[in-house]
């Protein structure tokens, strides 16, 4: 069963094109400097339409998660973490963690993470996170 994948809209296409090209793209208000996620064509803090897209560091920390023991049919059969990463730039995003066991012992809150783009189709790569190296 194919994994449930996002369908980009005009407002979010830059984000998904970035993931496809190996870049985590965030948006920032050029007036109040607020960085935000998910994508939209205006600043959710001050409502300015003067916003820009920039390449984020791809670094963050493990903020919170659960380990789902009732996998969705398109997610395989093993328990997996559904996690929220807080990016160094401020915004938080839902993701999955790769490159480490899906256990409470291995998944320690506040551990440093880095983005990993997992290709799903020619258009869609999902931004997953792995424990930061080095």
């Amino acid at each position: 069963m194919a994994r449930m994948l996002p369908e980009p809209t005009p407002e979010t296409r830059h984000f998904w094109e970035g993931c496809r090209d190996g870049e985590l793209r965030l948006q920032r208000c050029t007036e109040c400097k607020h960085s935000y996620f998910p994508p939209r064509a205006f600043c959710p803090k001050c409502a300015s339409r003067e916003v820009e897209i920039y390449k984020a560091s791809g670094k963050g920390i493990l903020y919170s998660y659960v380990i789902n023991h009732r996998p969705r049919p398109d997610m395989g059969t093993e328990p997996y973490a559904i996690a929220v990463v807080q990016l160094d730039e401020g915004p938080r995003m839902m993701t999955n963690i790769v490159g480490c066991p899906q256990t409470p012992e291995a998944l320690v809150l506040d551990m440093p993470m880095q983005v990993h783009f997992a290709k799903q189709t020619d258009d869609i790569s999902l931004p997953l996170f792995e424990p930061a190296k080095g």
Partner: protein
Amino acid sequence: MKPKSVAVVGAAETTRLGKIPDVSVIGLHADAALNAMKDAGLKPSDIDGVATAGVSPVELAHYLGITPTYADGTSVGGCSFMLHVRHAAAAINEGLCKTVLITHGESGRSRVGAGGFGRAPSSLMGQFEMPYGVTSPPTMFTIPVLRYMKTYGVTEADLANVAVIQREWAAKNPRASFKDPITVDDVLNSPMIAWPFRMLMCCLVTDGGGALILTSAERAKDFPQKPVYILGTGESVETPMVSQMEDFTSSKAFRVSGKKAFDESGIKHADVDHLMIYDAFAHLPLYGLEDLGFVKPGEAKDFINERNTAIGGKLPLNTNGGGLSYMHSGMYGMYALQESVRQMRGTAAAQIEGAKISVSHGVGGMFAASGTVIFTNEG
């Protein structure tokens, strides 16, 4: 709204609760509505306002034979009915209508005439949450809790104890789905759903419904039941995406809604005799006690562990057994309101003697929305 200007004059749940495979969703709405109309001594022709969520108010009005001059289809999840009460009170005070019927019905277990659970892949949730394998509320509502637990030193046993104490209340309620006593160990040994949540920390899944009828306080005295007055109300929403909550240790929607209701009512927390906090999962009462201001941030676990919310405690909480043990058809808010009304009428299974003020606090979606209603039986 002006405190005590509007009252509940009809309140009832569906004739049966639990497993009702022979009644559809709209049928459950109707069963509850008919029971509430009987409770209030009214016929459909006496109702001129309708409000509901899950089905449209148009479908409800047509099905019951009501011609309303006020219709509210606010649908923000399980607390929609708290918002309906608030809006109905405003509508009655503004003269838009005189008598509002609010209904809930859901075939959560049997799925008879029920819609599916799904999100468009182009929606924000479809793009930025669903691809990561969230399945249903047990994998979304639960997301913030590890951060809350780390911040305040809350353990899995603390979470489990919430379920244990609510089961004690359920044991006093003949209509509760689960009444057998459980221990913290029982909860911690129940099947894993989404760590750290075990099955007994999650609400059950049942069929059922409930309905309320509201009218002006002036008219309320002429009804057969003791009126239950609306003292204050609040509502707010935060985000449909649990990952985008401002603070994982606190719900902004809870804080805003609760403060609004308390400010409007003019009461203090110490005045509250009875409290309902929508407990879709075991962490909700912890967030609710703190965000409503009954205790300071981080103090809820000790407050519960010291049995303040248990039988005989100073703040009886979720006295019907809650969503964890009483029933939960999907949008539990109606059942919290029903228990508040029963407590104020003096007819609850686990009646709090002398209770004069009851707070009913709801959540919608995964910390997405919130509604608070404060009731009193003193006119």
